[in-house]
Structures are given as structure tokens and as C-alpha cells.
């Protein structure tokens, strides 16, 4: 932190620290104005959003600058806080700044009077959460990384527990905190290995250490365990569908959009930057885990009946796809194919930033819908496009992006990922050559399924007839909420239509991690996204969109001119039935029924079929996560059994206790005598 006197000479790192400190001050101001909800909503959150924009600007300029280092006086004397702003952290700061600007603006309009924890406290937890995320990305030694990593988990835990009156939310908070802490312990042990007994925890020192293949693999597995637990990769994902719906919507948007990416940042930093000699099976492990969670996530998101759980499972799916991209890049890197590794890495990074934008947009829209209707489950919504156009149309953009449809960022990411899969014929081992096309097939299936989910999400909520009477009175989103959503939509559009510029931004990142970048091929033909060579593959989203809109416009004008534009409003076609009710539409379960039928073994279903003598017969099917019964409950039962055995140690009789003391003395004497 060089001299504070003349801001002109400040490096990017100082500006980022200014933003972090500003967030913390806003948080404190929130605590002072604990109950004054007006002040918090109108002043504090928008200020937070402005600082996010500042952070974005700083990150943009820092992306191309050389890495900057700073040492803060905090922390243990021999272990002060080292911070470093290199291109990788600049990219993630850009992601954080962009998304948090929109979400903070949305949160400003989100508060209502008298709801659960005082708004001032939420403002504190929210801004501490943001500050810790920004610091995680800049941490340059294990100690500060762990401190801000768990502060992030700590503050987001309180955000999840915002309205802790409801028992389910408490359970969700508990599960979330437990898995986060266990993951953090794993990461801690991994850093223990990486410092290779030198006692110097800075990342610079860790980069010099060359671990033996065995210890390197143990470190990598621990890192995958730790960061996977936080990112929601398959075996340790159970907390995500519980915690994200529990948190208030703007915060689940931030958690889903940004926090999961920070977990993957950690994976990136350890796998590519700190560990030196990567082994090929690391990539395969990451890819299989990624694909398993992606398929699991998308299949489960299709059958959900609650808005936010659907989006939470869809986050698991997207995280899975990103992990597959990282795994493939690691595989290429371990075989020394830098260019292909850079392509896969760009695909993963692209997917991260586009997922951050469109997922937070979708969570914000669920927030707006919940505020307007007070309903969480899809079965009780419908026809909101008429009463809430300002929420419906941005959500449509988000839905198209999440479904991976062409003009948006989601498609570009998938396109890059599929391209990188196509070039894998050069791998030395035949087994991998065979494995990778199958994985490409799975990715295509997952992308198509996510389209299915998104049609269900948008169709059941916004289209069709309102399934409840009170939906007529649903009011549209407030001004702040509209601003927040429009910011995120513009982010999605930008990512969708100008991939070359975004890839140029990522180029320094891939150069620093895998010593190769895509930018040189992408930059010479400005509109065309050409990953490797012109005749291999190219995609120009801008021209693509222009083509579709031109055809759209031409058709519209010609039909109007050649024929006419007359139109008349009539009741819909009812096929002879006298009356049409809203209940005749497909319910959320109905829409997901084919997937439930095709992917039967994935689920653990309990059907309640009405018997003939039921007074009011009703049919209910509950779909549960089988992993909960295969992994989480057995572990809980094991701990319970072991603790009962240990409990017998303390039976209360003093003679027995004296016997313990005597026996210990004798045993230790025997051990020592030998």
C-alpha cells in the first residue's frame, strides 16, 4: 500500500483495496442504521453498487497490466497478508464487480418493512460477503486465503439465515456451514502439503516447490475435495439446493452467480498455478466429476416444483460443465498441448462469466416474482407476463442464455467447449481418445436438457393463465429492481454478441496459466470468433443475430404491405368444452413428467396414489436426492454409533475412572520402559 497521499500514483491493487474498505464501511453504516430500512435501501445498497462499478473499471484496466503485489500489516507477524493482482484475479474481479453491481441495485429495491433480521444487519453481512470475495481472489498466501475464504462462508451463512424463523432455513444454514467448513479443512490440509515443510506460506514459495507425484496427487485430490465441496460438485452438493432457496433472492443470486465461481477460482489457482507437474489422470478425475454433477444437476432441475430449487440444481449443472472444461484443459496441459489447453480454459472461463450474469438475473427475477405474489412454488404461478412485463422480458433473455441458445453468452461458452472436445483426437492414450467423444455427446445432451428446464421455468411462471386468483394483483418490479435486472441483461447481451472482445480479455489469463492464448486468432477477424483456424470453425454472433432480425423485419413488413395487418381478439379454441379453467394447463410436475419417466433410476421417488375410498383423492409425488440416503445419512448414523460407543467411556462410577488413571499410568510406563 504505497503512500496514500497522491492517488494518482496508486496501482490497481490500491483501488481494489479502496473498494473493499468502502464496502466494509457501508456495512458498518448499515449496523448503525439497524432498523431504518429506508436509509439502508435507498442509500447504502446503491452506494455499494457504484463501488462495484468502480471495481469493474479497475479490473478491466488491470486485466492487461502486469501483476502487482502488496503486503498488509495485518495477520501474524511472520505471516502478514500478501495480496497479488494478476490477470486471473483481475478477470474474477471483473466478474464480481459486474454481477454485484446489478445485484446490489436489485437488492436496493428488494427490501420491505418488517421482515426477519433488521435490514441494517443484512447490509453488513452482504457487504462483508462482497469484500471477502474480492479479497479471496487477490490472496497471495495461504493464511489470508483461508481467512477471507471462511469469512466468505461465515457471512454468507448469516445471509442464508436471514429469516431464521422457519426451521427448514435453519437446517439449510446448518448443512451449508457444515459442508463449507469441512471443505475449508480439506483446503487447509492441501495448503499444508503445498508449503512442503518450508514454513513459508506465500504462493510465490509454493510455486517453487516441486512435490513428488504421490504428494502432488494427494494435494490435488484434497483441493478438488475442498473446492468441490464449496462449488457443489456431485458428492458434496446436497447443501446447494437447500441453501440457495433459503437465502433472500438477491443474496442467493450473488451466492449462485459469484461464490460458486470463487470456488472454481480456487481450483484453478491450485491446479494450474501452484501445483507444478500435473498428471493426466487429474484432468480425467475433474472431467468425470464435472460431467456426473452436470447430468445429475440438469436432470434434477427439470423435475423440481420450486422456482429457486430449480435454479439451484441448474447451477450444479453449469458448475459441472465448467469443471469438465477445466478438467479437459488440465488433461491437455499435462500432455503439453498448450494451445488446446488454452481453448478449453477459455471455454470454462467464458462459461463462468456468462453463468454468473444469467444465473443472478434469473435469481433476481424469482425474487421479484416472490415479492409480487408471495409464492415460491411453480404450481401456484402463471400468466405473470401480462402483469409484470418489466420482469418477464429480462427473464426471457436470462432463460435463453441459460438454455444455451445462440445469440447469448451461454451458447458461446458451449460452442467453445464442444470445439475443444472436437480436437482431442491427438491424445497419446487410445482410451482417452475414445472417452472424450462420449463426453462430448453427454455435454450436448446436458445442453439440450437445460433448454427443456428453462422452457418449463419461463413457461410455467410467466405464460399461460394465472393459476391463483391473487396473481391478478401482482405488481410489477420497482425502479431499482428494473435497473438491476437491465444491467444484468445488458451483461448477458454483451457476452453473447462480442465474444472476441471478451476472449481478448481472457487472453492474458490463459497466457499466465497455460502459456498460450486464443486472442491472436480471434483478433485479426474482429467480428468472427475463430478459435484455431478459419476453415476449422467460426461463429459470428452479431451477423447471426442481424440475419435473424433482418428476416424477421422483412417478413413483418412484406406481410403487412402485400396483404394486411388486421387482427381480432377472440376467446381461445376450447375444442367444444363450455368452460376453460387455469387448472387445465400443465402443472410443473406435469411438465417434468417425461424426464422423470426417462431418467427413473436417478431419482428416489415416493408416490402417494389416491385410493378408491379417499374423501378428497389427491396424487402427490415427492422426488428426493438419492445421494442423501447413500452418503449423508449413513455418515451421520456412523458418527452416532461411534459416539454411543465412546459415550460408554463415561459411566459415572468413580472406581472406573480411577481404573482409567491407573491403567494409563501402567500402560505408558510399559511403553516407555521398552
Amino acid at each position, binding site marked *: 500500500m504505497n503512500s496514500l497521499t497522491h492517488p494518482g500514483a496508486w496501482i490497481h491493487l490500491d483501488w481494489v483495496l479502496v473498494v473493499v474498505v468502502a464496502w466494509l464501511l457501508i456495512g458498518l453504516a448499515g449496523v448503525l442504521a439497524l432498523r431504518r430500512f429506508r436509509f439502508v435501501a435507498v442509500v447504502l445498497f446503491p452506494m455499494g453498487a457504484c463501488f462495484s462499478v468502480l471495481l469493474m473499471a479497475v479490473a478491466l484496466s488491470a486485466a492487461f497490466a502486469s501483476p502487482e503485489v502488496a503486503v498488509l500489516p495485518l495477520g501474524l507477524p511472520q505471516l502478514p497478508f500478501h495480496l497479488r493482482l494478476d490477470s486471473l484475479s483481475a478477470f474474477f474481479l471483473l466478474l464480481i464487480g459486474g454481477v454485484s453491481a446489478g445485484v446490489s441495485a436489485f437488492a436496493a429495491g428488494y427490501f420491505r418493512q418488517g421482515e426477519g433480521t433488521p435490514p441494517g444487519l443484512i447490509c453488513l453481512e452482504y457487504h462483508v460477503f462482497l469484500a471477502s470475495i474480492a479479497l479471496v481472489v487477490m490472496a497471495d498466501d495461504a493464511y489470508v486465503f483461508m481467512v477471507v475464504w471462511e469469512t466468505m462462508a461465515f457471512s454468507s451463512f448469516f445471509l442464508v439465515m436471514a429469516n431464521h424463523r422457519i426451521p427448514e432455513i435453519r437446517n439449510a444454514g446448518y448443512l451449508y456451514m457444515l459442508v463449507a467448513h469441512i471443505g475449508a479443512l480439506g483446503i487447509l490440509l492441501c495448503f499444508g502439503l503445498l508449503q512442503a515443510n518450508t514454513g513459508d506460506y506465500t504462493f510465490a514459495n509454493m510455486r517453487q516447490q516441486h512435490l513428488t507425484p504421490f504428494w502432488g496427487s494427494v494435494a490435488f485430490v484434497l483441493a478438488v475435495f475442498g473446492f468441490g465441496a464449496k462449488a457443489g460438485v456431485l458428492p458434496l452438493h446436497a447443501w446447494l439446493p437447500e441453501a440457495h432457496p433459503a437465502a433472500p433472492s438477491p443474496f442467493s443470486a450473488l451466492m449462485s452467480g459469484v461464490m460458486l465461481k470463487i470456488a472454481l477460482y480456487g481450483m484453478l489457482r491450485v491446479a494450474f498455478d501452484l501445483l507444478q507437474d500435473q498428471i493426466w489422470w487429474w484432468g480425467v478425475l475433474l472431467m468425470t466429476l464435472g460431467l456426473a454433477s452436470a447430468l445429475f444437476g440438469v436432470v434434477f432441475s427439470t423435475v423440481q416444483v420450486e422456482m429457486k430449487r430449480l435454479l439451484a440444481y441448474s447451477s450444479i449443472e453449469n458448475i459441472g460443465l465448467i469443471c469438465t472444461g477445466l478438467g479437459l484443459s488440465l488433461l491437455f496441459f499435462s500432455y503439453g498441448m498448450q494451445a488446446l489447453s488454452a481453448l478449453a480454459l477459455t471455454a470454462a472461463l467464458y462459461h463462468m462469466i456468462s453463468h454468473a450474469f444469467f444465473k443472478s438475473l434469473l435469481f433476481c427475477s424469482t425474487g421479484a416474482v416472490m415479492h409480487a405474489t408471495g409464492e415460491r412454488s411453480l404450481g401456484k404461478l402463471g400468466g405473470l407476463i401480462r402483469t409484470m412485463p418489466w420482469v418477464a422480458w429480462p427473464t426471457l433473455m436470462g432463460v435463453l442464455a441459460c438454455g444455451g441458445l445462440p445469440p447469448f453468452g451461454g451458447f458461446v461458452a458451449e460452442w467453445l467447449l464442444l470445439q475443444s472436445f472436437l480436437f482431442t483426437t491427438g491424445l497419446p492414450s487410445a482410451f482417452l481418445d475414445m472417452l472424450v467423444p462420449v463426453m462430448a455427446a453427454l455435454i450436448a445432451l446436458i445442453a439440450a436438457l437445460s433448454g427443456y428446464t428453462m422452457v418449463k421455468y419461463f413457461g410455467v411462471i410467466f405464460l399461460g393463465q394465472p393459476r391463483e386468483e391473487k396473481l391478478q394483483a401482482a405488481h410489477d418490479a420497482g425502479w431499482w429492481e428494473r435497473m438491476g435486472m437491465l444491467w444484468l441483461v445488458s451483461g448477458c447481451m454483451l457476452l453473447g454478441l462480442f465474444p472476441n472482445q471478451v476472449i481478448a480479455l481472457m487472453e492474458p489469463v490463459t497466457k499466465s496459466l497455460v502459456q498460450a492464448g486464443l486472442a491472436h486468432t480471434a483478433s485479426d477477424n474482429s467480428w468472427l470468433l475463430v478459435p484455431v483456424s478459419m476453415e476449422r470453425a467460426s461463429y459470428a454472433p452479431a451477423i447471426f443475430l442481424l440475419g435473424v432480425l433482418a428476416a424477421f423485419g422483412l417478413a413483418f413488413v412484406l406481410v403487412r404491405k402485400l396483404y394486411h395487418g388486421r387482427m381480432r381478439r377472440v376467446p381461445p379454441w376450447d375444442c367444444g368444452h363450455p368452460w376453460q379453467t387455469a387448472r387445465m394447463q400443465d402443472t410443473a410436475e406435469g411438465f417434468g413428467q417425461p424426464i422423470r419417466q426417462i431418467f427413473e433410476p436417478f431419482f428416489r421417488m415416493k408416490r402417494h396414489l389416491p385410493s378408491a375410498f379417499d374423501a378428497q383423492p389427491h396424487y402427490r409425488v415427492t422426488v428426493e436426492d438419492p445421494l442423501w440416503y447413500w452418503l449423508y445419512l449413513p455418515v451421520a448414523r456412523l458418527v452416532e454409533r461411534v459416539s454411543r460407543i465412546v459415550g460408554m467411556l463415561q*459411566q459415572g*462410577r*468413580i*472406581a472406573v475412572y*480411577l481404573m482409567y488413571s*491407573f491403567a494409563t499410568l501402567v500402560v505408558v510406563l510399559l511403553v516407555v*520402559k521398552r
Partner: protein
Amino acid sequence: MIKFAPQLINLFATLILLLSFAMISQRRIVSLINLFMIQGAALVAASFLLGYVTHQPDLYVSGALTLVLKVMLIPWMLYRMIAKLNVRWDVESLFNVPTTMLVGIGLVIFSFSLALPISRLSDSLAGGSLGIALACVFLSFMMMITRSKAVPQVIGFLSMENGLIFAATTVTNGMPMIVEFGIALDVLVGVLILGVFMFQIREKFDSLDIHNLEALKED
């Protein structure tokens, strides 16, 4: 007289060991206290003898201290307590007498095997008595474990203190004076507190049986 000293010390040591064995197998509480008194007396005699032989005045002081405490004051308090609590019943233990004796012998062997390498090195007058002192400590430890009444446990605790003081006097000719005073003070206060406890337990459970002191446990 001087040349008999090592034999006399060993005599006192064996006497103390014998008394510990007797205390383990003793049935009646009053005789238990008498045995404890005799053990205290043997300890006093040993420290006076050592003091005389090695011309160290503070051994006399520590002997006098033990005399006052372990032979007169504490037994008198125990008698008064028993009289007031009108405790006359005999003392049953968890195991029958033969098994306790067998275990006692095992412990003696164990403590001798432990003390052997050390006693060979120590050049002080009563090298061998370390093994016996350790044996006495272990025996009183076992007595506390097997007894199911509060008073015998207290006596076991005090006889363990005796064993330790005996080890201190014989092996290193007594501890520094200030430490001796500290130990004596602690023992005295300890007995006072145990007395207070016994009254409270008696008043709460109207019996001194340890079995009703087993409520706090992990179910």
C-alpha cells in the same frame, strides 16, 4: 548405631509395605484408621532415623510435621467424624480379599521391576526403598479403586501421600523445606475438605456409599 541404619530403614520400609497390604484386606473401619496411624508412626521413625544419620535438621522438622499431622491430628479427626456420623458398619469391597491380595502382589512386582534400574544408580543410604515406596503408592491407589465407601477412599488417598513422603525422605533425604510445608498444608486442608464433604454427602444421601454418586454419566 550408624551401621545398623540401612537395615533399620529397610525394616521401616517393609513395615510400611506390610501395613499397606493389611489396610487393603482390612474389614473394619476403626482398625483401618489404626493401621493408617501405625503407618504414619513408621514413617516418622524412618525420617527421624535418617535425620539423625545424615545430620540434616530439616528431616527432623518434616518428621515432626508428619507426626503431628499423620499420627495425631488426622486420625483424631477421622475418629470424631465416625463417631458423629455413627458409622460402625464394616467395609465391603468390590473384589473378595484373595483377589485383591494377588493383584497387590502383582503390583509390588511391577513397581520393583520399575524401580530396579534407578535404585542401582542411587548412592543414597536407602536405595532399595524407592521400589517399596512406589509399591505402597500403587497399593493405596488400588485400595481407593476397590473400596466402595467414602471413608476408606479418603484413607487410601492419605496412605498414598504417606508412600510419597516416605519416598521423598528415603530417596532424596527430604524435599526442600518450603515444599515440605506446602505438602503438609495441602494434605491438612484436603482432609478438612473431605470431612466437610462427608457431612454433606451423608446429609444428602444419608449413606456414605459411593454407588449413589453415579448420576453424572453419558447415557
